[in-house]
């Protein structure tokens, strides 16, 4: 009898061991999967065609700007506005947001960062476009790449503006940022495409995956706010809670859920209300951030948002106040909560 029991236990132990090994293997599994490019995957085809030599990167798509409203935002990718191209230190700082741990960057232009489209003067590799997105996060505060991003996120004496806190938040709450050559549209020829996807996890097993549309369909301010959105999914693990919002995808139920859309809007509000205008924070960039803020306010929540951009006028002066207020309880609203919790 004892020997049969032992045998049973050994079998169970072996099964559990296999399960545990499988789970551990899953935990450390890289984010890439076997992939066969389809007709839309222009980056994949360009890499393939280069055969290991210089890649002829795709041109901007910008289908959403068919109306021409924001055509000038393309210039954010001009080499003269890609501030990190002249500085190894700057590139190192930007890589520290999680790109360094990411997959696929070697084939997406790691050694081709200053490659320029000769017709436009824009940096054109996917990795360079990603750096331009992150540069808006890094350089939007006065300290820029001298900001110490490692301090506690509660240290509001040091992070005395929202934009300083935001840079540290992105650094501390993301582990891995990877790129993909996929276009990730719903069907071939469709313009409905995914820009980014995040797998959440608390133990440095989170990752953000960036697609073709992130590099070539949206401007660098939109890229920056998308990153901030994704980071809220990553280690904080906030998933979308709503449905029935106007834009249909990525809906949060309401503002005070403090989800990814709320955080994305906080960064956009801080950016367009920033008074630290310099070569890195320009009128055009701020106007772009304002437009993005409005789009999210009007279409990204199930419940209509009750306030407007003016409510955020002092977000940079009082970052901790805004961060606390977004999470304030619906059940015990204060006067200030009422303004921000719809």
């Amino acid at each position, binding site marked *: 009898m004892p020997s049969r*029991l*032992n045998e049973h*236990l*050994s079998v*169970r*132990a072996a099964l559990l*061991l296999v*399960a*545990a090994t499988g*789970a551990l293997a*899953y*935990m450390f599994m890289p984010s890439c999967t076997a992939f066969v490019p389809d007709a839309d995957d222009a980056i994949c085809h360009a890499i393939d065609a280069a055969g290991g030599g210089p890649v002829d990167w795709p041109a901007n798509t910008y*289908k*959403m700007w*068919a*109306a*021409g*409203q924001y055509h000038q935002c393309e210039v954010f990718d001009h080499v003269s506005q890609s501030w990190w191209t002249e500085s190894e230190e700057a590139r190192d700082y930007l890589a520290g947001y999680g790109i360094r741990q990411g997959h696929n960057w070697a084939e997406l232009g790691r050694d081709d960062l200053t490659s320029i489209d000769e017709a436009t003067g824009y940096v054109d590799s996917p990795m360079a476009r990603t750096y331009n997105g992150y540069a808006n996060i890094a350089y939007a505060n006065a300290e820029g790449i001298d900001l110490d991003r490692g301090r506690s996120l509660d240290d509001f004496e040091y992070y005395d503006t929202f934009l300083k806190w935001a840079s540290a938040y992105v650094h501390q709450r993301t582990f891995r940022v990877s790129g993909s050559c996929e276009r990730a*549209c719903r*069907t071939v*020829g*469709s*313009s*409905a495409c*995914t*820009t*980014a*996807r*995040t*797998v*959440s*996890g*608390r*133990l440095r*097993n*989170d990752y953000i995956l960036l697609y073709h*549309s992130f590099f070539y*369909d*949206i401007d660098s301010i939109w890229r920056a706010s*998308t990153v901030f*959105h*994704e980071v809220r*999914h990553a280690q904080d*693990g906030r998933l979308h809670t709503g449905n*029935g919002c*106007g*834009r*249909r*995808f*990525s809906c949060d139920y309401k503002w005070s859920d403090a989800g*990814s859309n709320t955080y994305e809007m906080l960064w956009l509000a801080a950016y367009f209300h920033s008074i630290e205008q310099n070569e890195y924070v320009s009128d055009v960039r701020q106007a772009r951030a304002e437009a993005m803020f*409005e*789009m999210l306010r*009007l*279409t990204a929540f199930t*419940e*209509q948002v009750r306030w407007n951009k003016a409510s955020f006028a002092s977000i940079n002066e009082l970052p901790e106040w805004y961060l606390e207020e977004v999470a304030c309880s619906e059940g015990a*609203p204060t006067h200030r909560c*009422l303004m921000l919790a*719809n």
Partner: protein
Amino acid sequence: MPIASNRPLIWLPLVLSCLSSLACNTQAETSGEIGRVTFVQDDVAERLALRVELTGVEPAACMRVRKPIEGFVEWTENALDQAVHQKLIALVSDADRFDSYRSDTDLAARSEIEGCSAWPGADAPCYVEELVVAGGGTPWRFSLQQGVTLSDEGQELVDEFLTAHEDCSGTRSPSETSTLSNSSAP
């Protein structure tokens, strides 16, 4: 082998499994989708929404839901009548109309402030009656509040949105459909 000595062997994988499942407590979240024009019409009682892809490769998606919005909202996906799709996209892509849309948007912002200032009860949400059209730029807003007069261009866009919404949701009568299809024939 005594049972007691097996226990660590049994529990170790179990603990590892639990730890790894905690570590792997991951969920994929797709976000940041782009590429469509979104129309949202809100009033106090209900929301109408329509998403139209520029290229028309994908079917349009639409929904109509009572407020407050609770539970799962069902969207209907339908290919729009080609003439309806083309006209709607033409109206939001015609740069000559943008000044009128911007004027309507400014008017909506002003009427929102006036309307919500007079809203009964500070604790109650102030629902703004308007149509929002959002894509990649600044959204256009068209107030549907009484007393607000839209530009001709804005009114035409509102009317065309309603036609497209009916087409998507299947509430447009066949005679209307055939009339439109015939009128758009080359």
